[in-house]
């Protein structure tokens, strides 16, 4: 199958990395080549030294987008999972691609402040971290993402299913049946039921 870029965008701690990794697992099970470009990891390597000014954020996203483009045109599913707060840069990255799927990982900022898995919101609210998206830096939500998942309302599984189903309907990934939805025992049970009704 052809490659494409799956781009997760959303506020800090909204669930981008969690969903990206779970979708990665599923796509690997279906025989696809996948690479996750996680925002936190990229900042340790590809974008080491970049800060959080608008200019640096834009550069960071352009770097991730460029690598994603190279991967996707070589039959890899490139999964970007970075806040990517500015619409214009996200759209610029989209325009580099033939196949681009944007997933808006949506959750109210108050809920995220409660979650605060990494303790970053607390530090940002205390003024210890500057330019923190959702506190003192803006986040511009996408206007027409291919998928919207609401992580304050859905379980991880529900959000992942929504994303995977969209990719199946777009024919970007094979259906689960190409491998199998079913264990061996389940297949035997299905076979038996089909035989009872003369369908096999």
């Amino acid at each position, binding site marked *: 199958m052809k490659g494409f870029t799956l781009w997760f965008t959303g506020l800090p701690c909204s669930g981008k990395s969690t969903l990206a990794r779970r979708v990665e697992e599923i796509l690997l099970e279906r025989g696809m080549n996948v690479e996750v470009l996680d925002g936190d990891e990229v900042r340790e390597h590809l974008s080491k030294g970049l800060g959080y000014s608008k200019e640096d954020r834009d550069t960071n996203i352009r770097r991730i987008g460029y690598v994603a483009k190279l991967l996707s045109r070589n039959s890899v599913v490139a999964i970007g999972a970075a806040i990517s707060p500015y619409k214009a840069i996200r759209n610029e990255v989209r325009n580099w691609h033939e196949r681009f799927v944007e997933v808006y990982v949506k959750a109210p900022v108050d809920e995220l402040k409660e979650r605060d898995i990494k303790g970053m919101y607390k530090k940002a609210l205390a003024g210890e971290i500057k330019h923190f998206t959702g506190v003192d830096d803006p986040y511009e939500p996408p206007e027409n993402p291919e998928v919207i998942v609401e992580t304050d309302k859905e379980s991880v599984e529900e959000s992942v299913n929504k994303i995977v189903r969209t990719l199946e*309907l777009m024919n970007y990934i094979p*259906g689960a049946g190409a491998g*199998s939805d079913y264990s061996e025992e389940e297949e035997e049970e299905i076979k038996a*039921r089909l035989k*009872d*009704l003369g369908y*096999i």
Partner: protein
Amino acid sequence: MAIKLFGRKRKKACVVGLDGVPCTLLQSMMEKGVMPRTAAIVSRGTLRPMTVTLPEISSVSWSTFMTGKNPGEHGIFGFTDLKEGSYDLRFPSFRDLKTETIWDLVGKTGGRSVVINQPSTYPAREIPGVLISGFVSIDIDKAVYPKSYLAMLARNGYTIDVDTAKCRDNPQRLFSDLGALLEARKRVLDEIWGTEPWSFMEVVLTGTDRLHHFAWDAYEDESHPHHSDFFDYYRKVDAFIGHVFDKFQREDSAENFFLLSDHGFCGAKKEVYINTILQTHGYLTFDGAGPASLSAITGDSKAFALDPARVYIHQRGRYTKGRVEEKDVAGLKRELTQLFESVTDGSGQKIVRRVFDAAEVYTGPHAAEGPELLLIPHNGYDMKGKVGAPFVVGERRLQGMHTWDNAFFFALREDLVDPSKDLEIVEVPWMILRSIDVGP
């Protein structure tokens, strides 16, 4: 209660599916006074015979109904398919459906659907509304969206299907279980109806299909010990239809009430083994003496069949051992068409009524994933893709078999159905959606 949207009452549609009910049987039941409620409803609208998908089996037909697309678009060609790069069977699931469903379309307009016992929707996924999957669900925990309904189903003694292994050769058990299953579906429908807002309600009765497979003789033979049981079941189906219609009428004009089946049925006389036909005429060979499966197919083979009556050309590039070149496919299809049109059951009776080239019936991005030829048998010849049958014709295993034509569609509103045209199942969902102002 109708859903109000900014003060405008949302239109509602209610669909009752009767799996495997032939139009002529339904008409006969109404004429005989077995189905008076249904007869009264039908007299107010339009009942039409209908052709369905090819092949004429529930997984394909219901997939066409739930999407409004042909198999070349939705990607479901049977209960079985081959694993990619292999000759092993796989079992397409709801996740293999390649297009949106009509319930997704209703959801896009802000409406919600309640779908009860829809075949070919397993494992259940999120829809805007409620989905209870039907056949071939094997684990009810994975057959329901949202899962919060599992407790309600358990409380109402709901099961997906009768135990086909136990009912198949035990008519007493069959009729008893069919009745209990129908009652459970009614209880679940009643409970959801009152609690879940909806603009599209669909419930499918699959007991009719089981009844026909296992007890068709009881319908045709007046002296059969279970002849009256067969008709009693249809009385219960009639009561169910009447019950649903009454509920709909109490809260709505009920003008958007629909009935349909996904294929017809007739009595089975014999089974016919397509792969044996192909072997006998040199189109299919296997390694070893007695093939257990299609995996033993040789590279010299030019064609093979999958259930029920799908013929695939063994093409190079599509199958690992396939050697038929693309340039030879058209000629081979012609040869095979002539073969199937001429084959008889040994007593001079032709077996195949019609051969369809897939190009006549499949369009869309997935058309090339399906078979090249589809066979329609004469009534009574139940065609199978079994591998290794020693003879072309064998004894029937089941009493009834599916038919491609003689399904039916009923609409209370006569303006929805064009009486001058033959009706195909792929048109039906769009008529239903049009009735509630939902477009493609």
